[in-house]
């Protein structure tokens, strides 16, 4: 066992973990933050995306120990209290989700896209940038609309 300490959603947490523990296991099983999902275990589907020191990472292939001292934001930490993040609001308003399983990773990726690419995103850019996230329900149509609208709303 080894001790890992990190700041998750603004709170400092510390735990003893098996060295092979993945970040997503640490979040889901140790901290019981079950909003982050595992869809494929191989970094392909993006259901597990969280922000690590402000950058989107796939937590299913990140060792928890490698995040010692880092700052992590999960879907549970995105809203400001009861006020939703504009990207969350945009997904609801544009019907950008159906079963909801890929949604946390989609939203975390979308926020990261805006952080990197700015607020005025064309459809082509959004589609290319969403390459690392798979959705089986929506055909992406409304997710693309949601990301564009969310990006604009984040500028306000």
């Amino acid at each position, binding site marked *: 066992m080894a001790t890992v300490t990190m700041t998750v959603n603004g709170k400092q947490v510390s735990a003893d973990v098996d060295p092979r523990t993945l970040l997503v296991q640490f979040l889901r099983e140790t901290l019981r933050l079950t909003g982050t999902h595992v869809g494929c275990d191989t970094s392909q589907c993006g259901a597990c995306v969280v922000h690590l020191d402000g950058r989107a990472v796939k937590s299913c292939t990140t060792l928890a120990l490698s995040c010692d001292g880092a700052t992590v934001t999960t879907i549970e930490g995105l809203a400001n209290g009861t006020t939703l993040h504009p990207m969350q609001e945009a997904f*609801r308003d544009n*019907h950008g*989700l159906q079963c909801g*399983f890929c949604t946390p990773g989609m939203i975390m990726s979308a926020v990261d896209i805006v952080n990197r690419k700015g607020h005025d995103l064309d459809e082509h850019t959004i589609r290319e940038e969403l390459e690392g996230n798979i959705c089986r329900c929506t*055909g992406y149509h409304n997710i693309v609309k949601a990301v564009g609208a969310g990006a604009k709303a984040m500028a306000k």
Partner: protein
Amino acid sequence: MSATGIGAPVRRKEDFRFITGKGNYTDDINRPGQAHAFFLRSPHAHATIKAIDTKAAAKMPGVVAIFTGEDIAADKVGGLICGWMIHNKDGSPMAAGAHPALAQGKVRYVGDHVAVVIADTLAQARDAAEKITVSYDVLPAVVDMNAALKKGTVQIHEAAPGNRVYDWHLGDKAAADAAFKTAKHVVKLDLANNRLIPNAMEPRAAVGEYDAGNDALTLHTTSQNPHVARLVLSAFIGLAPEHKLRVIAPDVGGGFGSKIFIYAEETVCVWAARKVNRPVKWTADRTEAFLADAHGRDHLTHAEMAIDEAGKITGLRVSTKANLGAYLSTFSSSVPTYLYAPLLSGQYDIPAIYCEVEGVYTTTAPVDAYRGAGRPEATFVIERLMEVAARQLGQDPAAFRKKNFVRKFPHQTPVIMCYDAGDYNASLTKAMALADVKGLAKRKRESARNGKLRGLGYSAYIEACGIAPSQAVGSLGAGVGLWESAEVRVNPIGTVEILTGSHSHGQGHETTFAQLVSDRLGIPIDNVSVVHGDTDKVQFGMGTYGSRSGAVGMTAIAKALDKIEAKAKKVAAYVLEASEGDIDFKNGHFSVKGTDKTIDFGSVALQAYIAHKFTGAQLEPGLKEGAFYDPTNFTFPAGVHICEVEIDPDTGVTRVDRWTAVDDFGNVINPMIVEGQVHGGIAQGVGQALCEGAVYDSSGQLLTASYMDYQMPRADDLPSFTVDTTVTPCPSNPLGIKGCGEAGAIAAPPAVINAITDALGHEDIAMPASAQAVWRAVRKMKMAAE
């Protein structure tokens, strides 16, 4: 239309928990003292098990128990069942082999379940499984259907000689043969409908629990139909009687058919929970999902169409081999038979149809219903034939379709179905206008200037949804009725709980069902909640598949609401001191005809419970009603999808440039949700046509067992879609609903292939039309031209 009533694009009530990470999926559930299960799976496609040595594994840290097929047999746990009996041409029943939850003596596909290790942690269970020694006698794999049926091929199940599950047919062979004898034109096509892996984003999962004090079991699981799961686990597998077995399907992350079935892992988890007297949890990793979720499609078909001098279709003959995999999954037998052949008439008036289907065992994963289930396969046959026929006859494909459309309703096809309502020409006309078919020639020239090939493909599909009239499906071999139930509980302050046997796993029932109630009772949508997915809360139900939850599930709610209104009127009559016949109910208020006396719905609910205005002899207190609704016919959603592709002949890459869908779903409750269903269906259909395909090698190893090998459609593989509707209300249910869940997946594949072959000037290309396949086709054409 109110802002939250029928027809309004209400934002979904369920979304808040999903966008904030507060969903409750099965893998999010953890029970005190739970152990973890890991399944040791067969690495061979076909082998006899000589011995399983678990001694070393049992000594590994954290191991609680290890079970094999012997333990399942010793406990008399019944085998997994197939719930639809198909009869052969000669009337004899199909040949089905046993399907134990853990292999007994033999394994029949890579991924078959050999043993389960239960340990304190998943890592410990996995580590221990590596110490299990299984000695196998490897037998030849049988992957190919033609090889499986060949004389002398190794037997997969003793019970199914020649690896043939059934040899079934539908229609009038003599009439079809006669049509071909007098035909002016005959069009022939050999088609493969590629094998798909459903890939709901949430992998299957189960948590089994045993309550020793009450000798009762609970299974939390990723199910589209928890009551059917309980029925099968009780009545057939025999784990516990129904009143001692609770099945809970909480938030479920997509199903697409793959979560209808009762699988080995879920069965073993709940059985083992009693054995070890601890909760037992299992969650599939993605490779397990690829290996052991039921796959979809996988047909080989020869089809022929007879056409007369005037260009009218006179007959259709279809011969199909359907791969059923190594075991018969829960509804597998019905998919290539009764969910397939009855749709072969498409939107067309075809006087004679004959279809024969051989169901085949192979040493591959079981194949069962996947979004559309049989209807995409039928649509692919008929819509590819229509396109090729039009080209061979030198006719415009839209005009050829129009000439053959069914125009009078009801229309009895020669293959069971009686289409109740539709206007196929309206959908085609609207779709052609929206797709700007007139501008195609110009766009083709522009593409050509850029060195690209452009093509347009139609798909005029029909499906049978609202599954299904119980007596009708019973006469065809179904083991269950396919009605739906609902209960409406009005609380004393007028809020309402709807209990439904339908199950939502992305479809938005919490919103659409509440819209119906808000509309009918005139109460705010926030005062309505929907309860589903728990056999202890909802008495019984048949679940969600076959685009049935609107047409069947909501109609059950509507029937229960009729009873609520009738009872509430009685209460209102006592309160308003009027006769019951004089009470009107409108916009949430009861009033006495011709007076200004009125009372709102919530106050009537309170009066029903306090029961001060009537005696027990006059009226029963309370306001709670239930209904079971059994549909009188299938529903027949239909529409036209038009796909336009641009192909780079140098790379073979096909880009879907434009997509137009005009669907007739009858009346629509929430257009936003309906459009979303269409989008998702199209994406899955485009996936089938362009990139998805399960591939086994000749030794039965699945080569496509991760997202690195099985290509899922991603955001940059698809365009935005133009989606619209036409409306002919469904006459067989009071809401006029037809269903929309599967349409896109049914319509899309032939639209894509028709577009690609139009661009290439080619008659056929197999699915998936990958860049490599298209590039090869382009090369072949170039070489032939040189």
